[in-house]
């Protein structure tokens, strides 16, 4: 059979794709611990708080947001993979409250093993999402590599007053999560033929949904603290946010938005390896949740929703607006912020 006649299933090229391919956060932290932290008065967000992107103040009107993200395939279809990878990379700009401006393609592709049409479809998916976001792909870099990988480097902007970081949570803030959890579980289930097609499509659909509306709501309601929930799972990102803000996050696992059937999958043992890795990363957590709920919180999300810390008086109205928009209709209040106690995250 000729190469271009083969039906390419990208999933056959990877053991774990999407954000679950991330290097262990614990390992990364150890590796980078010796590096000096750069200090510059205009560098408003640096690596020290493990935030979603760097933020650099250009003038009193504009903060530049700078970020990148790429990963190997997490679904079979090239175009969908391109859409999801781009949505995920753009998300970091949204998590800082900004709007994406320009992007560069970061592409690795094995031309000897796959027809180039596959590459074209991956990049097309990315192009369409960046266009939908109102930004431009202005170039990129492509090298030979197997399995394929795709993502973007993105710059975005935000007004200094609207900059959202993960270090601004204050006691009594209400936690809102804008997308259901469980995509890592559904992708793992797909690989072992346990995933319902409808739920798989639901997961793909939400991963290629931009966090643009959620970001616009943060600007409207002057939300100061948020992060996007990706490879380290809700627990991992909540932990980093709590640590950066020096508060404790109390998460009520019973009110988490979750994709259909995911709890049943977890209970039947369909737990991706990345969830265990994330669980080991977060040392400072107390939990009275069931094991399945705990693992749901550890599930690596690709292109997950925003976790916002919202002043309590604004929370209900913001939630109502989020739920009224199709992109963020599953948004839920999932807990609250308190003064720092003996742990950074408390699950109940």
């Amino acid at each position, binding site marked *: 059979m000729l190469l271009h006649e083969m039906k390419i299933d990208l999933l056959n090229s990877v*053991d*774990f794709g999407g954000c679950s391919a991330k290097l262990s956060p614990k390992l990364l932290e150890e590796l980078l611990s010796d590096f000096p932290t750069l200090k510059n008065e205009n560098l408003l967000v640096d690596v020290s708080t493990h935030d979603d992107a760097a933020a650099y103040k250009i003038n009193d009107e504009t903060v530049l947001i700078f970020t990148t993200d790429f990963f190997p395939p997490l679904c079979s279809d090239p175009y969908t993979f391109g859409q999801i990878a781009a949505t995920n990379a753009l998300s970091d700009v949204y998590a800082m409250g900004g709007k994406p401006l320009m992007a560069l393609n970061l592409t690795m592709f094995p031309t000897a093993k796959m027809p180039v049409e596959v590459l074209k479809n991956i990049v097309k998916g990315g192009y369409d999402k960046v266009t939908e976001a109102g930004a431009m792909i202005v170039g990129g870099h492509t090298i030979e590599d197997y399995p394929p990988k795709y993502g973007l480097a993105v710059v975005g902007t935000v007004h200094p007053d609207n900059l959202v970081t993960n270090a601004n949570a204050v006691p009594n803030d209400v936690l809102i999560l804008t997308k259901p959890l469980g995509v890592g579980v559904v992708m*793992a289930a797909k*690989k*072992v033929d*346990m995933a319902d097609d409808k739920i798989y499509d639901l997961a793909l659909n939400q991963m290629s949904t931009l966090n643009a509306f959620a970001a616009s709501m943060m600007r409207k309601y002057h939300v100061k603290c948020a992060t996007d929930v990706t490879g380290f799972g809700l627990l991992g990102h909540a932990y980093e946010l709590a640590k950066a803000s020096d508060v404790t996050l109390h998460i009520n696992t019973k009110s988490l938005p979750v994709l259909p059937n995911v709890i049943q999958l977890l*209970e*039947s*043992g*369909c*737990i*991706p*390896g990345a969830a*265990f890795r994330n*669980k080991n990363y977060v*040392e400072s*957590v*107390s*939990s*009275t*949740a*069931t*094991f*399945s709920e*705990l*693992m749901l919180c550890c599930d690596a999300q690709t292109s997950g929703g925003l976790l916002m810390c919202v002043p309590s008086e604004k929370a209900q109205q913001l939630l109502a607006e989020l739920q009224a928009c199709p992109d963020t209709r599953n948004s839920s209040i999932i807990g609250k912020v308190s003064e720092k106690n003996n742990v950074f995250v408390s699950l109940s």
Partner: protein
Amino acid sequence: MIELNLKGLPCPKPIIETKKRLDSMCEGEQLKLFIDNETAYHNVTAFLKGINAFVNGNKIKDEFIIICQKVAYINAASPAETDCETPSCFCAPNVDRKLVVQLHSNVMGVGDDDLGNTLILAFLDSIRSLPIVPGTILLYNSGVKLALIDSKSLEFLKELEFLGAEIILCGTCVNYYNLKEKIGIGRISNMFEIAEKLTSATTIVKP
């Protein structure tokens, strides 16, 4: 004990298969898992601890073995602190440190050697199922052949080691038969230690 081979399965299949088998078992029944890679071993262990079903786990040569137990509430809440040790009312089989099994030959009894070899295999197969595990198993003279990689007795010895028995081989004997490269289990030692084990034992079993 029910056994389940999880070797070669992609993540998260080992956990799914373990859970499926546990679901079909009776409360209190135990399951022994065989795993061939470290990640799967850690993940299955974490899962079993999470549902309070973990009993014991160990690496023996290139193989990971986990013993777990069907518990009443398989989805019970995880302990308050996620990293705390799972309390378990199960006790591993008792190891009697003063009980020594002496394997001085690769056959049992005197007579036809094929019969003798069958008998010694049956003996090792039987003692691994007894409630008391010998603290030491000494292999000397042609008994060291029972520890060879291709020996049928290897898996029985592996299990006994897993349960807590120390397997000691006579170095002089291993060299005499020129078997050093083919030994699959046990620690090679000398006559001093063998003599010391034998003289300090309260019970010596010599099949």
